[in-house]
C-alpha cells in the first residue's frame, strides 16, 4: 500500500514530461523506470524509487550492482538510455546544470586535490560553486570547524589521514549549502570511531533540512537511514524503511550463537541441514530458520558432540546485514 502514491505520481509525471510541462515534484528525488545500457550490459534496469525531502536515504547493494551508475545519472554526468528522473524538481537531462548547482557530491575517492592545502581545497570548491567574499570566509570557517581541522588550514591534504580527509571532503561538498547531498561510500575504509563521528555530522545536516542520498557497505550505518533501496544486478529488489524491509524480507528468525571454534561450528550447523542461512559475523554465528527457538536443544547437542563449548545462544532481531545476505543470496539463486 505504501508504494501506491509513488506509482500514481510516476504516471502523472511521465505524462507531464511528454507535454513538455515543467515538473514540480514534492520529492527530493524521483526516479521512474530508469535504464542505462553500456553495449550489451544493462547496468541499471528499470529502476523506480523516490526520496522524501529532508530524509537520509540509503542505497545498498553488492559491488557492480549499479549504485554508482545511478548516482552519475542523477547528477547529470551520464545520460540514461531510457526512463527519467528529477532531482529537487529539475529534470536530470534537460536541467542538469540546475541539478548540479543545487546539490553537493562526495565521491568514493574524495575528490580533493592532494597537493593543495586544506584551505586551498575549500577555496577551490567555493569558487567552483560561486561562493565568494565574506560568505566564502564564513563557510570555510564552518567547514574547517565541522571537520575538526582548526589550525590545520595550511597543511597539505596529502598528509591528512582517511577520517580527516573524509570530513574535509564533506565540508567541501556543503560549502555552497546545497539542499541535497549525494555521498558515494563516504565511510569506506574509515575506523569505527570516525564512522560514528561522520554520521553525527550527517544527522545534523539532515536535521537542518538537507536531503541525503548515501551508499554504504556498512549495514550498521544503513540502519540509520529513514528509507532504503536494495539494488542487485541493476534492479531494486527491496525498498522501504529498515524495519519494514526486515519484516518483509526475512524468512525466519535469527539465532545468534556465541561459541568456541566458530569456524568448526559453522560446518556443524550447516551439516544439520535445518537452516535457511548460516553465516559468520566475526566470531559469532547467525543461523536463520522459521521457528528457530525450537532448534536450540538440538543445536546445543550437536555442538557439544563436536567438542564445541557454547557461551550464549539468543534469538535476536535480524540486522540489515542478515537481510542483505539473505536477499542477495536468494536473488542470485533465483537467477541461476
Amino acid at each position, binding site marked *: 500500500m505504501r508504494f501506491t502514491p509513488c506509482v500514481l505520481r510516476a504516471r502523472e509525471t511521465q505524462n507531464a514530461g511528454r507535454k513538455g510541462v515543467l515538473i514540480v515534484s514534492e520529492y527530493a528525488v524521483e526516479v521512474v523506470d530508469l535504464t542505462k545500457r553500456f553495449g550489451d550490459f544493462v547496468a541499471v534496469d528499470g529502476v523506480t524509487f523516490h526520496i522524501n525531502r529532508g530524509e537520509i536515504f540509503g542505497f545498498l*547493494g*553488492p*559491488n*557492480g550492482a549499479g549504485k554508482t551508475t545511478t548516482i552519475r545519472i542523477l547528477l547529470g554526468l551520464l545520460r540514461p538510455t531510457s526512463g527519467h528522473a528529477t532531482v529537487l524538481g529539475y529534470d536530470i537531462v534537460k536541467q542538469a546544470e540546475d541539478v548540479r548547482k543545487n546539490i553537493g557530491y562526495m565521491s*568514493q575517492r574524495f575528490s580533493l586535490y592532494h597537493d593543495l592545502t586544506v584551505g586551498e581545497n575549500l577555496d577551490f570548491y567555493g569558487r567552483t560553486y560561486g561562493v565568494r567574499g565574506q560568505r566564502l570566509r564564513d563557510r570555510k570557517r564552518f567547514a574547517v570547524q565541522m571537520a575538526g581541522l582548526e589550525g590545520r588550514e595550511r597543511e597539505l591534504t596529502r*598528509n*591528512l*589521514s*582517511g*577520517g*580527516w580527509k573524509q570530513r574535509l571532503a564533506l565540508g567541501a561538498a556543503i560549502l555552497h549549502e546545497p539542499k541535497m547531498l549525494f555521498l558515494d*561510500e563516504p565511510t*569506506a*575504509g*574509515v*575506523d*569505527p*570511531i*570516525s564512522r*560514528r563521528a561522520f554520521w553525527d555530522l550527517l*544527522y545534523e545536516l539532515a536535521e537542518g533540512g538537507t536531503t541525503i542520498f548515501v551508499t554504504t*557497505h556498512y*549495514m*550498521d*550505518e*544503513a*540502519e*540509520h537511514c529513514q528509507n532504503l533501496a536494495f539494488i542487485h544486478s541493476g534492479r531494486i529488489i527491496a525498498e522501504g524503511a*529498515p524495519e519494514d524491509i526486515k519484516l518483509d524480507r526475512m524468512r525466519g528468525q535469527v539465532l545468534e550463537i*556465541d561459541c568456541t571454534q566458530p*569456524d568448526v561450528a559453522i560446518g556443524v550447523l550447516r551439516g544439520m541441514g535445518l537452516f535457511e542461512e548460516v*553465516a*559468520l*559475523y*566475526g*566470531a*559469532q554465528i547467525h543461523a536463520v530458520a522459521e521457528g528457530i527457538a525450537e532448534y536450540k536443544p538440538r543445536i546445543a547437542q550437536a555442538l557439544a558432540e563436536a567438542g564445541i563449548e557454547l*557461551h*550464549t545462544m*539468543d534469538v*535476536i*532481531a535480524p*540486522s*540489515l*546485514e542478515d537481510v*542483505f*545476505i539473505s536477499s*542477495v*543470496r536468494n536473488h542470485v539463486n533465483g537467477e541461476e
Partner: protein
Amino acid sequence: MNENNFVIETKDLTKQFKKVVAVDRLNLSVRKGEIFGLLGPDGAGKTTAIRMLCAIMDPTEGSARVAGFDTKKEPEEIKKRIGYMAQQFSLYGDLTVLENLTFFADIFEVGRKERQERIDRLLEFARLTRFKGRRAAHLSGGMQKKLALACTLIHQPEVIFLDEPTTGVDPVSRREFWDILTELHIEGVTLFVSTPYMDEAERCSRVSLMFDGNIIVCDTPERIKGLVEGQLLELRPDELREAAQLIADLPGVLEVQTYGDLLHVFVDDAARRAPELQSVLAGAGIVAEGLRRTRPRMEEAFISLIRKRSEEG
C-alpha cells in the same frame, strides 16, 4: 628461519616524516602460519608499518626481519618471499583476468613450466575461472579484489601483507574474500592484514591495536575483548539518541556506544542495572526491545580501548 619461529619481528621500528612520527618504536612478532590483524584509527600508522615490513620504505630507526631477512639490508630477498596487496593495488584494467595473472608471473619470473598449473589453480582458488577472459575493468569490485589477491600469490610467497583488502566491498563479497584467506591460513601461509572492519578482526589469530604510531595492545581477539571493563547490555530503543543521552548519566553505567539501531551499554552489574535502565527509559516514554546481556565484540572493545587511550591523552 630463526629460533623463535617468528616470520616477522620488529625492533623499535620507527618512521619519522618531517614533523610527524608515523610509526613510533614498533615492536611486534608474528608466528609462522598466523593471521595477524593490524587495527587502529585512521592515521595510526598502519600503512606506513606495512610498507616498511614489505621493504618498500626504509625505517628512520629500528629494524625489522621478515621471512628471515633484514628489511633494510636484504630487501630483494624479502620481495621474493612476500606478497603485498596494497590498498590501491594496480590491476591493468585493459587486460583480461588471465593476462593480468600472466603479467605478474612475468614480473616475478615464474618459470614457463609451473606457470600454467599455478595460474589454473589460482583462478580456481579465487573463483575466477569462469571470468578469465573478462577485462579487469569490467569485473565487480569484489572480483577485482580476488584477482588482486591471486596476482599477489603468483610467486607462492611465504608471507602475505594485505592493506585493507576489503575496503569498499559488500558484505557477501567480504565473507567470500575471508573464506579464501582462511583457506590460505589452513595451507600454512602467514597473513598480515590491516582492516577497518571489526568483524574481520575477530577472524584473526592475533590482533594488535595501533594508536599514534604505537601498539597499545596485542593479543588474541578473545583476550582483547576481555580487557573491556564491566558487563555489556544490549537494547534496541525506538529513540536511539535520546536513550543514549539518558542512559549515559545513570549510576553504574561505564560507557554507552551505538551500533546501528542498537545501544551497547557497559555497566558494573548487568543483573542489577538492566531493570533500572528499563524503568528509566519507560519513564521517558521510550520503548526498548531486546534488552539482554551479551559479550562484547571487537567493535565494542575497539571503541572502548581507543576512547580510554584518547582520554588519557
